[in-house]
C-alpha cells in the first residue's frame, strides 16, 4: 500500500477536464486507487478510476486530497498521480 497527500492548485479543481485527466491517468494502473477530499469530508472516499466518484468529492482549488493505492504498482501510481495533481492536471496553475 502507498499513500500521499497533495494540494490541488489548478483553477477548476477536480471538475470537468481535470477530473477526466486524473481518471484516465489512474486507469493506467493495475492498483486499486482511492481519493479522499481531506478539506471537505475525510470519511468519504471514491475510486480514482470513476469520474463520477472523483467529481462527487467536489474538490476545489486549494483543497487537500489523499491518494491511496493498493496493488502491484501502488507506489508508482501514487507517485505519478501526486505529481500530476501537483503540476496542475494540464491546466496552468496561475490560470494564465
Amino acid at each position: 500500500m502507498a499513500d500521499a497527500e497533495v494540494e490541488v492548485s489548478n483553477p477548476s479543481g477536480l471538475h470537468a477536464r481535470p477530473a477526466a485527466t486524473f481518471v484516465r491517468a489512474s486507469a493506467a494502473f493495475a492498483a486499486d486507487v482511492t481519493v479522499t477530499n481531506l478539506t471537505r469530508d475525510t470519511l468519504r472516499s471514491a475510486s480514482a478510476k470513476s469520474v463520477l466518484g472523483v467529481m462527487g468529492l467536489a474538490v476545489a482549488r486549494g483543497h487537500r486530497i489523499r491518494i491511496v493505492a493498493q496493488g502491484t504498482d501502488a507506489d508508482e501510481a501514487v507517485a505519478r498521480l501526486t505529481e500530476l495533481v501537483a503540476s496542475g492536471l494540464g491546466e496552468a496553475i496561475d490560470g494564465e
Partner: protein
Amino acid sequence: MTRELRGTAAAPGVAIAAPWLYRASALDGPAGRPLAEAARAAADEIGELATRLRDRGREAEAEILDAQALMAIDPALHDSAGERVASGADPAVAIIEAGEAVAASFEAIGDEILAARGADVRDVAARIARIMTGAAAPRLERRSVVVARDLPPSVTVELDRALLAGIALEGGSRTSHAAILSRSLGIPAVVGVAGLCEAVPAVSELAIDGAAGLVYLDPDAETAARLATLAKDGQDRSALDAGLASSALATADGHLVTCAANIGEPAEAEAAFSAGAEAIGLFRTEFAFAGRSSAPDEVTQAAAYAEVLRASAGNEVVFRLADIGGDKPIAYLPLEPEANPFLGVRAIRLAERHPELLPTQLRAILRASAEVGQRASIMAPMVADESDLDLVLRLVADARAAVPDALTPRVGIMMEVPSAVLLADRLAPRVEFMSIGTNDLTQYLLAADRSNAALAARQDPLHPAVLRAIARVVEAGRSVPACEVAVCGEMAGDPIGALLLVGLGVDELSMEPRAFGAVKRAVGARTLPDLVALAAAAQWLSTAAEVRDAVESGP
C-alpha cells in the same frame, strides 16, 4: 391567435418553423441490448460528437463531452444500475434511475459547478437507455424550432444544422451551455421561457426573436411579416461583416499590411482563414504538450502541425517553438520551482535541461512541412542575444539534416526580451522575420509583472518606451532587405495599438480573428502619412494615457 411568451435573449436571429419537442428520457420499450455494450456504444458516439465540436472550435463543450464519454463507462454508474436490475427493474429504466441518483447527489452538495454536471450525467444515462431500447437518435424531419426544458451540448451538436431553425428552452440562462453553443453556431435562441413545454404540444408553428428574447406561439400573418423584415435586416448586417472579412487590412490611401491570426489549436486554423486571415502569424504550439502524461512524439506532433499547414492552403504559418515554463507549466517536464518564472528557465532556455524537447519539435514541423509540401516558418521565443540565436540556428540545421526531403524553413525570432531589441540590428541580418510579442516585451521593458494585479496599469503597450522599442526593431528590419517585422501581441488586435503599429511601419499584424473587423475599420479610416506622423509624435509623449488620447483625437 398569436400568444407571446417572454424569456431571456440567448442568441440573436429570427426563426419561424414548426416546434419539435425534445424529451431527454422518453423510453420507447424495454431494453434489448446489454448495458455494458450500450454504454460502450454511447461512449463512442459521444467521442465522435466531441470531435465535431472541436472541429468547430468549441473546445469548452468538447471537454464536457470528453468527460461524458468517461461517465458512460463509469463503474459507479454501472454498479448502481446493476443493483436496480437485481431488484427487478428493467435495465434501461435502471440506468436512467442510476443517472438520476448521481445527478441528485451532485446537486445536494451545494456546489454550483458540480450541480451543472448533474445534467451531463442525466444526458449520458438517457443516451445509454436509448441505445439499449434500440430507439433511433433524436432526429429532425423538417425545419424546426427545437423546444426543450434544457438541451445538452451532445444533442445540440447531433441535430441536423440545416433543419435546426432555432432553439427555445424553458430552462437555462444566457451563460448556460445551450446558450453559448447556439451563439457560436449562429442558431437563434431564447432561454428561460416559463410555461413553454406545456404550451407547445397544442401549437403548430413557433416563431422566436433571439435578440428580443420573445417566443410567439402560432404567429399571425402580421407578426410573421414583421419578423421576416427583422430577419432580412440581420442578414444584411452579417453580409456587411462578411464583406469586411474578405477586404484587405489597408489604410485609406491603400497601404497594405498583412492581416494574420494568432491560434492555439490546429482546429482554429480553418476558422481563422474563413474569418479573413491571410496567414497564421502565431501558432502557439503548447497545446501539443499540455494535458498529457508524457511528451508527444515526433509523429503525433507532425500530424497536428500538418493539419494547420493543410488548412492554410499555401498561406504562411508561423510555428512558435514551445514556450513552456514561466506561466505555462507542463505535467511531465519536471521544472524546478523558481522565484521569478518569467525571468527563469523557460522556452529555448529549456534546451539544456531537456535536450530532446526542441529537436523533436523541429523535426515534427519539418516532417509536416515535407508531407504537405509547404514551407514552414519557425519562430524561436525568448531569444535574448546572438548566442541564443546560434543555438536556434544550429538546432534547425540539425533537424533539417535528420528529416529527409525537408523544405527550407523560414526562421525568425520572437522579440520580447529587451536585450534582443537593443541588439536588433545584429540579429536582423541573420533571420527572415522578427515578430514582436508586445505582452512580454511590455512586462520586461517596464519591469512590471504581468501576473501582479497591482501593476496592471503599468502593463500598457501604448507606453512611449514600448513604442520606441518597436520603432527600433522596425528600423533594424528595414535595413535588411529580407527581414520582415510583425507584431503578434495583444497590441495588434487593439484598434488604437494597430493604428500606431501601422504608423511605425510594421509589415504584419497578428491577432485573434475576432479583432479583424474592428482593426480593419480603424486602419481603413486613416491615411499612412497621418499614421506615420502620429506614431512619430507618440514617441515623444510622457505616458500611455497621453498616447491613447493623441490617437483617439488624431486625424
